[in-house]
């Protein structure tokens, strides 16, 4: 078997194993709940029967391993369980399946993250590359101080400044990004303008610094000096000598920042009251709606693992040492 294929398979296996362990951790969180949990969800007036029925529904009386595999099996077929909210002490159950809650919101979150990534990734790569090429210049130093400041600033501060300037003082954009399933695309883009702008500002700063560091590291290689001493023009050095070796570090930078975007989205969605999965998770945490929290955590962690996996695989398949083994 070709070593590239072998290494990719190994990495995929590791990714699956990680996802498995992570899912086990997320699952076991439900067993850590205090004993009187049923009463807390159903209310003080809940009868013993309703509580017992509730425990039975959760399967709390079965062994943890059995429950875990049942849960994994259900998740694999798209069944994420039933929400805790909407239950009452009388036993009337108006709770909804978690999938119905998560589905449309997941789409909204992906839309926001996608719009941000489409602006932020090219912008950050461009800024990082130019800062690396003109390092030490006034431009480079200005960018350094600006990004250092942006990185250290909480997302909600950036968000509220943008709201203040672009929504409150000058009413150009809506400060609440409420979208419905039937909102047309142009309207949707207009409404997510401020959240996307906030996320872009935060991501670009991170990503641009990492790109700059990766490119500088690459340009310090002896083979780049050798290329110069062979009379290669700056254009040839970048395109022919640096770029073929740059895919792995660039992929890592992009994946890391998209993963960061996944987390940044939580705060931004809350600020702009955007109906995404981040806001759903925060609401579920406040009401201690564990099945929803678990589903959201699983989605976030899965995305995170997947992004890192893709970056590693790009690194593997562009590595000449693996592509052309001895």
């Amino acid at each position, binding site marked *: 078997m070709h070593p590239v294929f072998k290494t990719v398979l190994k990495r995929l296996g590791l990714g699956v194993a990680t996802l498995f362990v992570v899912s086990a951790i*997320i699952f076991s969180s439900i067993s850590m709940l205090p004993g009187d949990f049923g009463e807390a969800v159903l209310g003080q007036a809940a009868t013993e029967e309703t509580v017992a029925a509730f425990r039975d529904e959760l399967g709390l009386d079965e062994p943890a391993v059995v429950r875990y595999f049942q849960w994994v099996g259900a998740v694999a077929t798209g069944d994420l369980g039933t929400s805790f909210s909407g239950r009452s002490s009388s036993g009337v159950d108006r709770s909804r399946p978690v999938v119905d809650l998560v589905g449309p919101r997941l789409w909204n979150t992906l839309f926001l993250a996608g719009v941000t990534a489409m602006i932020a990734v090219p912008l950050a790569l461009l800024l990082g590359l130019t800062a690396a090429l003109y390092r030490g210049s006034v431009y480079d130093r200005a960018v350094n101080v600006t990004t250092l*400041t942006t990185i250290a600033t909480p997302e909600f501060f950036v968000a509220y400044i943008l709201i203040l300037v672009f929504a409150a003082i000058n009413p150009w954009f809506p400060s609440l990004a409420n979208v419905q399933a039937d909102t047309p695309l142009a309207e949707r883009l207009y409404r997510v303008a401020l959240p996307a702008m906030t996320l872009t500002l935060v991501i670009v700063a991170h990503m641009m610094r990492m790109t700059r560091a990766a490119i500088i590291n690459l340009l310090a290689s002896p083979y780049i000096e050798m290329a110069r001493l062979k009379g290669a023009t700056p254009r040839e050095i970048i395109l022919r000598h640096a770029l073929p070796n740059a895919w792995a570090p660039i992929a890592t930078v992009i994946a890391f920042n998209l993963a960061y975007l996944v987390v940044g989205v939580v705060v931004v969605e809350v600020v702009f009251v955007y109906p995404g999965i981040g806001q759903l*998770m925060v609401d579920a945490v406040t009401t201690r709606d564990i099945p929803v929290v678990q589903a959201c955590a699983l989605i976030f962690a899965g995305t995170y693992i997947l992004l890192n996996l893709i970056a590693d695989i790009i690194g593997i398949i562009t590595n000449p040492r693996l592509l052309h083994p001895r």
Partner: protein
Amino acid sequence: MSDAPETYSASAEVGAVRVRRTRTQRAWIVLRKAPISAWFGLLVVTFYLCVAIFAPFIAPYGEADSSFAAYAPWSDEHWFGTDQIGRDILTRLIYGARNTIGIALATTLLAFVIGGSLGLIAAINRSWLDQLISRAVDVLMAIPSLIFALMLLSIFGSTVWSLIVIIAVLDSTRVFRLTRAVAVNVVVMDYVEAARLRGEGLAWVMRREILPNILPPMVAEFGLRFSFVFLTIAALSFLGVGIQPPTADWGSMVRENASLIQFAQFDLRAAFTPLLPAAAIALLTVAVNFIVDWFLQQTSGLRDDL
């Protein structure tokens, strides 16, 4: 031409000898050469620490004193107005410094105790124990820490103690990785081998040979981790699952007063109220980052010729 000595003398060989100076003299020399950004950072941090320590003496009113009119505008009695249940914003800001910084500091310290000691042990041991801890950390880091924190808080509830322990454990993974990476480079040094060959015990090797040599990157990391922890706690409080009322805290203050921003066209100053605690958070983390940036430049090159 050459200045080669005719006869060879070992003690006359050139070696870069430092001028002996006291600690304060050295500190002053370093500070004088510091860039403006570092000076700015140091001043801001000092100011924050003073406010945090002397909060009860500086604050005009009590921390939970809600005996005033709600949403009062900026005035001489209430410089920054009052909040939704009539508490003085300035007072809340001052007490917020104490609570937010204190909790973040405690969390960072705990993270360093856990991550630092495990990292050192893993670096020295380099066998099954190292493997075990490293793989566990890999898995923990495969879940975004804010998400993990949200999940754990939903189970254990948002008390100050669960907040400190949860964030510290999650953050200690990064401390572990750094400590291990730095210490592994020191452990392979010949002087550590020389100490082992001499028959020195593990504790002595850790304390005298390894620790002094990993300190500079650890100090820098402490600054970075502190600002990260500080931002995480602020974010959690802002989301309403962090520090709980009536404790004054900047993250929750932003959330509680956020709606005032909509009044910008009527009273611009009121619209600034929710931005004040947010700015207080940003200013501190920016200041810490400036200091760390400067410290890293110092320790990477200049250290030896002071």
